[in-house]
């Protein structure tokens, strides 16, 4: 994919509040928002802390590890896929896909690690695979 096409794809997914997240994702980095006031991570990224309402949010590089909180295999799709909530080592939980492993291997509590995969539209997405 050309740089121009990727820029266009990112423009479709990002808004002013989340641009920094998606620009980092394009470089293969998962940034997590952390509140400097209460010290907690949150998800999805926002500029107002959902835990303490502070507006002092910093972005931190994620360790890229976690475990499956829950999952479901969508069978009614042209290509079946696994959607999941992954509880990250930092303590916050994000929606994602589990990729590059047999659906039958996926379990609640399974340790996973971060991989980036391009969406069909061309923006890089944080996904997870069996650790």
């Amino acid at each position, binding site marked *: 994919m050309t740089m121009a096409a990727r820029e266009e794809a990112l423009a*479709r*997914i*990002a*808004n002013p*509040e*989340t641009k920094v997240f*998606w620009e980092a994702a394009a470089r293969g980095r998962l940034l997590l928002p952390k509140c400097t006031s209460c010290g*907690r*991570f*949150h*998800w*999805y*990224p*926002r500029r107002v*802390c*959902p*835990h303490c309402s502070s507006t002092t949010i910093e972005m931190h590089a994620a360790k890229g590890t976690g475990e499956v*909180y*829950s*999952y*479901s*295999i*969508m*069978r*009614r*799709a042209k290509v079946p*896929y696994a*959607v*999941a*909530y992954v*509880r990250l080592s930092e*303590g*916050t*939980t*994000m*929606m*994602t*896909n589990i990729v590059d492993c047999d659906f039958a291997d996926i379990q*609640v*509590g399974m340790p996973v690690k971060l991989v980036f995969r391009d*969406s069909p*539209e061309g*923006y890089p*997405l944080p*996904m997870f695979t069996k650790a």
Partner: protein
Amino acid sequence: MSIKGRAYIAGAYEHPTRKAPDSSLAQLHAEVALGALADAGLTMRDVDGYFCAGDAPGMGPMSMVDYLNLKVRHVDATDTGGTSYLIHVSHAAQAIAAGKCDVALVTLAGRPRSEGQATGTAVRPLNPNQPDTAFESPFGPALANMYGMVARRHMHEFGTTSEQLAWIKVAASHHAQYNPHAMLKDVVTVEDVLNSPMIADPLHRLDCCVISDGGGAVIVVRPEIARSLKRPLVKLIGAGESVKGQLGGDVDLTYTGAARSGAAAFEEAGVKPGDIQYASIYDSFTITVLIQLEDLGFCAKGEGGRFVADGNLISGVGKLPFNTDGGGLCNNHPANRGGMTKIIEAVRQLRGEAHPKVQVPGCRLALAQGTGGSLGTRHANATLIMERE
């Protein structure tokens, strides 16, 4: 200020259609409005409050108020998905108690079946202005797999089984066999549910509600008007509403907003779950019923699987008759929003107008429970408790 005893449901009507390719959306809204008004013994000229949600055509209440040429002094277009109509009834009672209207009309209608919607399996589109969708839509959240994740976590935490979930569909099908309008009238077994195709693990096809056209309406009135009409008196005695999401990343799929909406409604009504003789429970999927029964306090958290098993939800068989019209699982889920039909069947039960095979004898206390949005992400719940006077 409490709404207890301040308003009555005087009219209720469910459109008989389940597929309406030759009707317009506005027409369906108008037909259910006429049906509910006729049921109450009122006319369009009596309506001075109108309530609708996102299924109504146009912006908020304006198109339908104009189409029906209503003379309203109070409107409310609160949209919380399928549970909107329970919230409308509660808000109508508040408005009546505050003197803002006397006769409130609430309508729901939709044509998802005629329009060919893949309600449960289509991925919701990305909208960068909606803060959550960029972090969800690319991963393929539909309704079925979001509720699938709720079911999977419940199984993990509490040992709930697919067989137990299947009992909810079995109970609904036992009721639907007596409803001539139900989309699915055949009685099914636990094995039938488990042998139906997997849609989104662990939910099978028969764990999912129907996709249907149609609609419904209710009329909420002040007490003096209710007493002047010829219909049995169905009094609102408690209501609650809540919204729950992902809790800033502390995602917890083991409970729903029904825990809060239910507690508020029971407190206002001054009754306990054990007092309820009939319950309409939102049933977009079997798991939706199980988890809300726990949250409402009909059983302890984690005990839902054992509570629904062995026909405990079948009228005349179990302890808690539910969805005696067949519910969304078998009867009707008009506009992909099942809240209105939950209210309507509770009203039928309290009036003694449910089918004789499923009528709860001497039904005086009923609950209707709604869910809107997605239990897997963000959702609203509403609870109504009604009493036959």
